[in-house]
């Protein structure tokens, strides 16, 4: 299991960004370079570097968004929105923070907004269920595609169902820690929680998953 420490690579500080004692990760160095280029007015060069940044983080971003939204198109939209927002507001990026944390926060907030919009759509647009029934389940990705062949395995279905049964906060923490590979410190910055709270949610999530999957 790869942890965050292994993803931190030493790279030279971008030109024009403030000198830092701690080595920057590759994405943070790229972001600092893009910011410097945008501030300097060389927008085309910044766009070229931004393409590299997107390629670097895209896979991980889609994993997080898909885990939150469980819908291909919504996840795609959330990832696109997050990257566009990053480029639009790159001048406000602070180099002393890891870029990954800043980006993940933007992405997670976008995912939560999309989920809210989708729940409103489900509540008002789709036909209402009976009064005694529970709230409608969130739409999931369309099945029966070649990409869903993995879910055909019973174990995969069990695990996916178990993760979906986690409470919202526990699922968010678990997703960022275990699937996105963030450290507890990074998750606490991303979600705006204390590290102790992140730890509690993560431990509860793991215990619950173990209870669900080891029956």
């Amino acid at each position: 299991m790869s942890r965050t420490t292994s993803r931190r690579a030493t790279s030279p500080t971008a030109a024009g960004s403030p000198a830092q004692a701690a080595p920057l990760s590759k994405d943070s160095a790229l972001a600092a370079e893009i910011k410097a280029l945008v501030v300097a007015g060389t927008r085309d060069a910044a766009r070229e570097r931004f393409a590299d940044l997107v390629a670097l983080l895209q896979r991980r971003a889609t994993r997080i968004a898909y885990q939150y939204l469980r819908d291909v198109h919504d996840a795609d939209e959330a990832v696109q929105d997050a990257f566009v927002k990053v480029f639009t507001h790159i001048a406000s990026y602070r180099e002393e923070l890891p870029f990954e944390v800043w980006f993940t926060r933007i992405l997670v907030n976008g995912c939560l907004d999309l989920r809210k919009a989708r729940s409103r759509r489900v509540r008002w647009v789709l036909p209402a269920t009976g009064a005694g029934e529970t709230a409608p389940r969130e739409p999931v990705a369309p099945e029966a595609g070649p990409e869903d062949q993995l879910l055909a395995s019973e174990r995969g279905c069990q695990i996916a169902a178990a993760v979906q049964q986690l409470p919202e906060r526990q699922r968010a923490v678990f997703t960022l820690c275990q699937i996105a590979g963030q450290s507890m410190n990074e998750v606490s910055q991303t979600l705006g929680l204390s590290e102790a709270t992140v730890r509690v949610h993560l431990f509860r999530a793991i215990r619950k998953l173990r209870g669900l999957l080891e029956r």
Partner: protein
Amino acid sequence: MMRQPHLSDDRLIDVCLDRAPAALERQHLETCDVCEGRRASLARLLADVSEVARDEADAVFTPERLSKQHARILQRVDREARPGRIISFPAGHRRGHTLLGARPGMRWIAGAAAAGLVIGLLAGRFAHVLPAGVARPASQAGGSVAPATLRAVSMTMSEEEFLGRLEVAIEGTSGSALRPLDDLTPLVWEVSAR
């Protein structure tokens, strides 16, 4: 030698989350098959969950889809994130590109139009200041009633006078032309009697 108690669930989770176990815990895990089995089971579970979640997303977001997404992001960046073009005015206007600057003859036309406007305004203002007889000699020559006089009469004329004059006008010679029309028009009591 007293045997170490079994590791708690939380400590096992800590160990599985790559938190290096202390020397005593490591020693216990090496000697206790039960705890080592629990640790291995938990580590396998976490690895399975992470792997399934990643594979699930990776199966949906194929390389082709990611490639399209990458292109779409850059398109949106080009379209949406581009700042609006600021048109500097008037300092940014180059003199050679202006209409007047390009054609010097147009200056005279513009100057003449402005002068005409000023003269027109001044003439209009002086026309109000001058007496009516001086301002409109043509109307006096024609012998018709001046608008100022007509306005004065209409303002002072009562309703009775107006209706009287109307009757006189109808009964006069000029009113004879309207007589056939008056005969065709039904009277009020004729209509109400029907």
